[in-house]
């Protein structure tokens, strides 16, 4: 009886040992999860403003011309084989300025394309410098069409992003680089009053009406009634310092184009981060 018990025990122990040593999941170490890294979402303009070097410019122009020729050839080939989707015409806005017939035809041709590869990345990432050269009266329709695609993309992005930075995105009129240039200019002019309490709301919103040269025609502190409230002395000091900064800085560094978009601008001054150190 005892013998059989010992045999049984020995058999079971050996079986357990075998299982533990041979099956990998029994000795697997716990998964070492990497630490969570917070990621800040930053909106990036789809067009860079960095001008190309003169040498690179020539090379780019040559390459572009070749590509254009190739493209035209391809288009001709494809148009024959492609069928226009029935909904394409319905999407056109009725208030658009009618285009010349030839251009209309081209526009349709481009629209009808089903192959996504045909939207050339070189054109989409063109610099401001290049843009001027690319604009060709024969391709206005294509550009209009591209604008549609862009606006659709922007809408999608706007819907997806929930961060506050979105309000400053290029979709509103200034590209990131233009916005940064303006911000950097005001940084230099704004002397932050150091005696402010940093545990209260320190946001000062200033609405500016600008002339085309960037000088200020009208400035308004949006929460100006707070300046005279009791216990809000610091707010008055802060608002005045912000207004002083804007006045000292003028003319502001604004883009040379798109005046209608930036003729009214709102600057939100908030030194909380800076004061907290």
């Amino acid at each position: 009886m005892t013998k059989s018990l010992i045999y049984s025990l020995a058999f079971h122990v050996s079986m357990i040992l075998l299982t533990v040593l041979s099956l990998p999941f029994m000795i697997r170490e716990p998964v070492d999860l990497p630490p969570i890294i917070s990621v800040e979402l930053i909106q990036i303009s789809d067009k860079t403003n960095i001008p190309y070097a003169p040498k690179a410019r020539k090379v780019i122009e040559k390459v572009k011309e070749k590509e254009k020729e190739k493209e035209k050839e391809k288009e001709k080939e494809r148009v024959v084989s492609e069928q226009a989707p029935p909904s394409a015409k319905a999407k056109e806005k009725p208030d658009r300025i009618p285009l010349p017939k030839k251009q209309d035809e081209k526009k349709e041709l481009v629209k009808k394309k089903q192959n996504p590869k045909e939207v050339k990345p070189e054109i989409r990432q063109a610099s401001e410098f290049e843009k001027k050269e690319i604009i060709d009266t024969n391709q206005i329709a294509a550009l209009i069409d591209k604008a549609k695609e862009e606006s659709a993309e922007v809408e999608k992005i706007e819907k997806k992003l929930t961060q506050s930075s979105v309000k400053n995105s290029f979709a509103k009129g200034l590209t990131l680089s233009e916005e940064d240039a303006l911000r950097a200019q005001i940084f230099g002019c704004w002397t932050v009053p150091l005696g402010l309490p940093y545990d209260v709301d320190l946001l000062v919103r200033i609405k500016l009406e600008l002339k085309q040269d960037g000088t200020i025609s009208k400035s308004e502190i949006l929460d100006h009634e707070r300046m005279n409230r009791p216990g809000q002395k610091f707010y008055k000091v802060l608002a005045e310092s912000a207004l002083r900064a804007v006045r000292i800085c003028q003319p502001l560094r604004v883009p040379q184009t798109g005046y209608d978009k930036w003729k009214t601008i709102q600057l939100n001054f908030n030194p909380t981060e800076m004061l907290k150190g």
Partner: protein
Amino acid sequence: MKFFLYIFVVIFLKFNVAHSLIEVDITRGNLDPLPIAVSPLHVDVESEKYENIKIKELGILISSVIEKNFKSTGLFNPLNKDAFIQKPDIAHLKPRFEDWRLITAQALVTGKLLIKDNKLKVEFRLWDLAASQEMTALAFTTTPSNWRRVAHIISDKIYERLTGETGYFDTRIIYVSETGPKTQRVKKLAIMDQDGANTKYLTLGNELVLTPRFNPTNQLVTYMSYFRNLPRVYLLDIETGIQEVVGNFPGMTFAPRFSPDGKKIIMSFAKDGNSDIYTMDIETRLVEKITEDSSIDTSPSFSPDGKYICFNSDRSGLQQIYTMRADGSNVKRISFGNGIYGTPVWSPRGDLIAFTKMKSGKFYIGVMRSDGTGERLLTENYYQEAPSWSPNGRLLVFYRETKSGKDGTGFTAKLWSIDITGYNERELKTETDASDPSWSSLLSK
């Protein structure tokens, strides 16, 4: 129908335009000193002579004191008077803003003074040059010999208007004046204006004086002195010069300091080899024991609301900073860094505690939040200690000693101040060597 559709489209477009306003967030600025022009005060022609004061120069003297005050803050850059185009009298009436903007000034101070019937009347105006408008205008009347105080008060008003923070120029600093070789120092109690002017010696130097501290509500001072080798705590009224002994305490007594309401003195003294914290009511002389621990508890300091006390203790082994309620309950250790912490002092604003830290043979003056977080070491040196807050909680004054030779030569003790940001560290000029400074509250409240 078409008409309504048209209106709808117009409204919709307008709505869209209204919401497409470009917003730019400005979260950083510069900390460069603000360029300010302090025009000499115009002296009224009707002014009468007064004792030894040269009235003609008084306008320049007052503006110089204001300028010096501003420069010492590190927040303002007073511009050179040689560059001023407009005369003081005209500038005071209506400045030509474009002229002042030309010299890159952002603010302008103008003023005029008049001495009549043995009274000095000073008025000043502060102008915002970017906005081309007056920011503030005030007038003061006092005895002519008080002109320096007027200059300090004007500085305070301008400082407050431009920074949003109460000024600290119309204040004094009390300290221990030290003379003689290191081994035989003569220590006197001395007081001066915060800018180093008007130094007065309050004791003769016969007895050793230590740790003078201002009452935060008035011009009373408490300090320790050894009389026949016994420590005594004294009260001294700066205005009247009347001095009284608060009490004879057996054993060693350390660092008496006032409560925020000025009605109590908090200190530590050693009894039966154990040092604890006590408070004493100045009126009733009633002594109350606050801590009851076998460790050494010293350097107590009240929070500005009087509800909490911070102090030193070695109850965890090394000397660290602790806080507790004013009744001695709820003791919490707040310093956890490497090194030894000492002389904690609660800021008048209540947000920070200043301290001295000793680590690796160096001394540091630093600040931390009242819960112990956010420790920042502001300055490092061979030997420095005893930080004391300016009344607005912006600056710290402390003293720094230099290393001496074997024979005691080369030893100095000087007062220094530093901004809580760690910038603007500078020496406060004193007539003699100095230690143990304490900053008064504003004289004109």
